[in-house]
Each structure stands twice: as C-alpha cells, then as structure tokens.
C-alpha cells in the first residue's frame, strides 16, 4: 500500500518536473530569440566577415583566409593605435581607482565628518549620470585652447596655457581625465558598499591591540576590499577598451592619429573606409582582449571564493 503511493508520488513528481521543464523552455524563448537575432547572428557574421575582403556594400566578396589577421600590423598606424588604446584603458583605470578609493575612504559612514555624507555621495555620483556624448562635448569645450575654462584658470593663476587637444601625449592625458571623470562616481559607490560590509569589530580589536590607523588600513581595509577593487578594476578596464564616443568627441583622434582608439578604427573601417573585412578583424581583436580580461576576473574571483568561501 505504502509502496504504491510512493511510486505514484514519484511518477507525479517526474510528470510535474517534465511539465516545469517544458514551461521553462517557453520562458527562455523570448530572451533567446532576441539575443540570437541581435547578438549571436551579428557576432557570427563579424567573425565570418573577418575572413573576407567584403567592402560592406557590394554583394560579392572573396574569402581570404587569415589575410586580414596576418596583415593587421600593416594597417597604417596600427602600433600607435594599440599604444593609444592600452594607454587610455590603463590610464583611465588607474586614475579612476585611485581617486575613487581615496574618496570612498573619506566618505565612509564610519568617519563622522562635518559635511553630510549622503549628499556628498550623491554629488560624486552626478557625472556618472551624463551621456558619453554629452561629456565628450563638455570636455572638448573646456579644453579649448583660446576660450576653454581650463586654460582661463591656468592663465588666471599666472601659468602658461596648454594646448590640450593638439599636443602629442598631452591629448592622451586629456581624454583619460574626461573618461575618468565619468567613471569615478560608479566606483565610489561600489567601494562604499564594500567598505560598509567590513565588520566593525575588526577595527575595534585592532585598535585595542594598538594598531595605528595606517596599519589598520593596510591589514584590514585593503585585504577586505580586494574583491571590490578587482571588480572596479576589471569593469573600468573593459569600459576603457570599449569606449567610443567620449574620447572621440573630445580629441577626434588628433593630433595626427595619436589618440585614435581601436573602437574608432573599427567604426572607420566599417562605415567610412568600406573595408569591412579588416574592420571585422579588428572587432575580433577587441573581443579577444575583452574576453581575456573577463577570464582573469572569473579566475581571480573563483580563487577568492575558494579561499574565503
């Protein structure tokens, strides 16, 4: 008697599970269709076109094998472009992380200051709300040699004005500052969340044992913040490699092509130069770079989970 009920129950459960599975498939369908049509298919096409000499317009094209990849370095100014791209990504990340970390430490709730913390946090987040399109224009105007506010302040302080947008090297820094300005707000918020999750007793115990604030920072705050720092570093680096309109609108790739980034080259080859095969090869290069960075993140976070989880 009891056996039959258990069998019945089992059968009922499997039929229920089968039912759930079928419904689940239906639930996945809308997102799957959208992503397949607008992400997977274009992605596959990019990879396929990277092996062709398609110009992006004509119906005919030839497969050229690895030609586009093997001759990437022959693209005019390829080395300069890679240097500019990597400088931009790493420079933005360093500047953003350092400023955001120090700011988050200063804004942490535990530090009771005179300035209201909630308001300060919102103020720091403000630039993060603006579009790259807007920020690009804004910084371009501010960097303007004759009329920009930055040079006005410099000359007002008795310094000589800087030609921000037409000096090699300086312009690279100029676009980094503009991009970091937007990113800092996000990173501050993430750092603050990390700081608030550190148990307060750790500091109390350390203080009782006579640890100085500097020792507490080094031995408690830094190790406990490691995962927040990793997340911020990785997301900012990826954002740096992906950035398109913001640096483009500030510097337009000038002077020469010294601030022309990988993303801007992809756009150029695809839409302006009608050399879609090469543009696709560059796209795949960007994809590989970003995939590698993400892989580092995944491995690192996994390992941390093994240690602490």
């Amino acid at each position, binding site marked *: 008697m009891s056996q039959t009920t258990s069998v019945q129950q089992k059968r009922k459960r499997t039929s229920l599970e089968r039912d759930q599975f079928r*419904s689940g498939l239906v639930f996945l369908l809308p*997102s799957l269709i959208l992503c397949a049509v607008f*992400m997977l298919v274009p*992605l596959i096409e990019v990879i396929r076109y990277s092996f062709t000499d398609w110009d992006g317009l004509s119906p005919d094209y030839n497969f050229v094998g690895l030609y586009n990849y093997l001759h990437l370095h022959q693209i005019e100014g390829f080395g300069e472009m890679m240097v500019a791209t990597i400088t931009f990504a790493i420079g933005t990340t360093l500047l953003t992380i350092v400023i955001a970390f120090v700011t988050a430490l200063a804004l942490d709730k535990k530090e009771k*200051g005179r300035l209201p913390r909630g308001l300060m946090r919102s103020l720091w987040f403000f*630039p993060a709300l*603006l579009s790259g*399109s807007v920020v690009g224009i804004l910084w371009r105007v501010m960097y303007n040699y004759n009329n920009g506010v930055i040079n006005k302040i410099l000359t007002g302080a008795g310094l000589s004005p800087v030609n921000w947008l037409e000096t090699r090297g300086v312009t690279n820094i100029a676009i980094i500052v503009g991009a970091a300005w937007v990113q800092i707000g996000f990173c501050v918020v993430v750092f603050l969340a990390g700081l608030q999750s550190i148990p307060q007793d750790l500091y109390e115990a350390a203080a009782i044992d006579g640890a100085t604030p500097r020792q507490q920072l080094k031995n408690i705050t830094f190790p406990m913040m490691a995962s927040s720092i990793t997340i911020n570093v990785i997301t900012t680096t990826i954002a740096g490699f992906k950035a398109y309109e913001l640096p483009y609108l500030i510097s337009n790739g000038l002077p020469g092509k010294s601030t022309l980034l990988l993303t801007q080259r992809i756009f150029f080859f695809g839409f302006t130069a009608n050399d879609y095969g090469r543009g696709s090869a560059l796209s795949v290069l960007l994809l590989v770079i970003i*995939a590698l960075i993400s892989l580092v993140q995944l491995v690192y976070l996994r390992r941390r989970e093994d240690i602490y989880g």
Partner: protein
Amino acid sequence: MKQRNTAKKVLSELILAVCTVVMLLPIYYFVIGAFKKRTDIIKYPLVLAKEMFTLENFPYVIKKMNYWKALGNTVFITLVSLLIVVICASLAGFAIARIRSRLFTGYYGLMVTLMVIPFIGCLLPLAVQSTRLGTYNTLWGCILIQAAWNMPFAVFLFTGFMRDLPKELEEAAYIDGCSTFGVYSRIFLPLLAPVTATCCIRCGVGIWNDYLVSRTLLNENKNPTLMVGIQGFFGARATEFGYAFCGIVLVSIPMVILFLCLQKYFIKGIAAGAVKG
C-alpha cells in the same frame, strides 16, 4: 593629542570639500553657461552675474534640435526597451533559478558569456540585420537592439536574485496544482520589485544615454534622439558655447530629476549590480 586630531579632521574635511568642488566644476561651468551668451562664457567662465543672465539660448536650442520630438523618442525607446528586458529576463531568470535542468544552467552560461561582447564590433552586421528585418531607421529597430544587448546582464541579475529566495516558496503552490506560469506570475513576480529597480536603473541609464545605436540606425531628421541631436551644436569650427551648454542641460535634466527623486535606489542598484557583476 586631541587637539591634533581635530586639526587633522578639519584638514581632511577641507581637502574633501576642495576635491568635491573640483569634481563638480565642469557641471557648474556648463549649467551657468546655459544662461549666458558666448562672449560672457569666454570672458567670465565661472561667474554668473545678473546682467549676463539670459534665457535666449533655450528657445533656439529647443527648436534647432527638435527637442520635444527627440525627448519623446528617447523616452519611448528607453521605456519600451526596459519593459521588454524586464519581462523576458524575469521569465528566463525564473526558469534558470527555480527549475532544475542542465540545459537551463547552460543557457545561463551563454548569457554570462554574451555580457562580454563589445557592441561596437557588431554594429555593421546589426545595421545589415535591421535592413533585412525592415526595422532600419525605425524606433522599433532601436528598441529591439537595446533590449537584446541589455538582456544578458538583466538575466544575470534576475537569476541571481531568484536563486537567493527560499526553496519552500513554490512547493506548496505546485502541490496545490498551480501551473508553472502561475507560480512565476503569482508568487515570484510580486517579490521582484528590488531587482527590477536595479535592472531598470542600470539598463535605463545606458539606454537613455546611448549615442551609438541611434546615431547608426536612425535618421537624425526623421527620428531625432537627444544624444545625437546635441551633436548639432558642435560644429567643426565655431562652437556656440551657449547653445551647446544649453543643449547639455536640456538632454541631461530628465535623468538628473529621476536621480534626485530615486537617489537611494540608484545608489543601492549600482552597488548591487556591480557586486553581482
């Protein structure tokens, strides 16, 4: 000792205040610039005196960039994309998090992988795809692309949230004969408010601020959007600073108002999204 500490504290607060001012200087500069003429912006960049104040920039900018239509289009694109994203991603997240199957776990892996793809690389095939589907230069073409490209992150968020809900939640409902869709819509959907807020804020800011998709897929005159429209004040040579700043204020103000009303959710949403991302 105590005196030294207070002195230190005052100093650190002072440094913080100065840094905040420097950080906000560009915003101050363009906001007051929107109410000044070009010559005044150049001569007195950081002051807004009574005699400089003018509202002349606004009517010109509103007319020139077709502001109301662009605003309508941008709002429409953002809201409809978010609606699609939330519906599709919560469904998928429910299946992945609450129905045990290897296939669904694999689907989750696919979504996480898709999160990595840089959009700009796929731009041209997307344009080709849109022409093929007949959605080129339509708002719907833009919406579908935005919805698709925000989907992986949204699925990731919803799955993470639903995984953490207690296991007993749906058991009783299934025993009572509730359908799978019923469990989703009646038991889970009402609980999803926090993650929906996170998702809308993270994806919404991105869609609202988008430049690349609307610039590539929409005709500026037929279907203007805010972030593309603002580029019109930015000529090759003589930039009318007053117009440009006024435009910046006009295209940014809706998001700023939203932020001011929902500050708490913004901050929480960003932190939650990042920790899970």
